[in-house]
């Protein structure tokens, strides 16, 4: 995403600029992972178009997954893919 600043020929920029653009603001539903049900299979992270789920610890146990809400657009693909139904799409009141 190009910021409103001096532009370049061909819209060339340093890589990784997308990180600065928090698409989480687009969502209506947010993905909420239940750490009790999560088996740490990583399928949510692999299927997420934005790489929002990341590995985190819960109750001292590793290999659980959490969601980075800066980037979760609320598409629901992870909830559909989760093999143990650990992910709920929860309407977000703003």
């Amino acid at each position, binding site marked *: *995403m*190009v*910021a*409103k600043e001096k*532009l370049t*020929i*061909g*819209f*060339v*920029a*340093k*890589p*990784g*600029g*997308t990180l600065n*653009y928090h698409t989480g603001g687009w969502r209506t539903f947010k993905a909420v992972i239940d750490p009790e049900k999560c088996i740490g299979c990583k399928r949510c992270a692999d299927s997420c178009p934005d790489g929002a789920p990341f590995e985190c610890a819960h109750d001292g146990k590793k290999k659980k997954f959490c969601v980075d809400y800066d980037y979760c657009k609320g598409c629901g693909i992870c909830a559909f893919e989760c093999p143990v139904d650990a992910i709920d799409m929860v309407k977000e009141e703003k």
Partner: protein
Amino acid sequence: MAGKMAVLEGSMAVAEAAKACRPAVVSAYPITPQTHIVEDISQMIADGDLQNCEYVRTESEFSAASMIQGAEAVGARSFSATSSQGAVLMYEVLFAIAGLRLPCVIAMANRAISAPLSIWNDHQDAISARDNGWIQLWAEDSQEAADMIVQAYKIGEDRRILLPVMVNLDGFLITHTFEPVELFDQKMVDEFLPPYAPLNVLDPKNPITMGLVAPPEVYTEARYMVHHAQIRAKEVIEEVALDFKKKFGRYQGGLVESYRMDGAEVALVAMGSIIGTIKDAVDEMRAAGMPVGVVKVRSFRPFPVEALRDALKGVKAVCVVDRDISMGMEGALFTDLKAGLYAKSNADMLGFIAGLGGRDLTIEDFKTMANKGFAKIKGEKVSEMEWYDLDVNILPEGI
């Protein structure tokens, strides 16, 4: 210093010109009537006549266009050629190439578009691609098509421009016709066209992103930048044509070429190979004392508004021949020319949709069109937009 002359098929002349520009990547998908161009180039590579060049075979024109886009993005000079349906399949990528400011060059062997299926010549393939940011040059004959290829790289790669260039040559009428062509001396081309020096290069050691997402705050500016480069290209196209003349001794016009326009009351305006036929028609009419001339449009994008106003100054009637049709309106060249002359000229404007799908246009046809211009000047009733040679007898009932 004249080069060696040879009788070549137009496609081979273009292939020879592309070879002389030392492309590093050539990628294309075969389509009539373009195929000979890239066939000839692949043969040159196989024979070792074109060194340090990779020929990439693709499964479609979409991929071929993507291939040259990628090649230019990593800093390699590229070449491709296409036609008709193949060009249409390239459209999406053509927009991207222009937006990324990659100075690719493709030869467009102009052909009609399906449906109904036609392999024969008209200009619809390129005309329907006129708004994608590519510079469009239009050749009259094999020599000009070949010369335009060399000029195209010089124009497109100019740091003031950085735009892709489409060199248009009429399918079959130029691509498959054998004409005497002056061959390029490699040393002279090397002097004229230095190696490609890209502005930005994709390189894993120094990563960059090209063509980022543009939110509404900057998209307008992005489009303006391409338009601005197009406008600037008017100057560079003229400049390069003159440089080329100095180096190679040949000049076929800059943005436009006027022929026998001194004192002309009627002017025929057109693009492509029909210009040669129109010149013959003009010669015959001039010999009979009729003040008529022809203006060849060499650059359709950028559209040379000022040069055309100048070339058509004092003319009483302008007859525009379009081998294309913008459905629901009129020929594209006719529309643009009228817009360009608006409030600047009192000339009557007549538009002819002619020569679609390979229908022959002869000297007599252009005399007929010019005579309609003279009739209009005399105040006779003449249709302002005519489907020339339309056979109403074969149209279905009720149309």
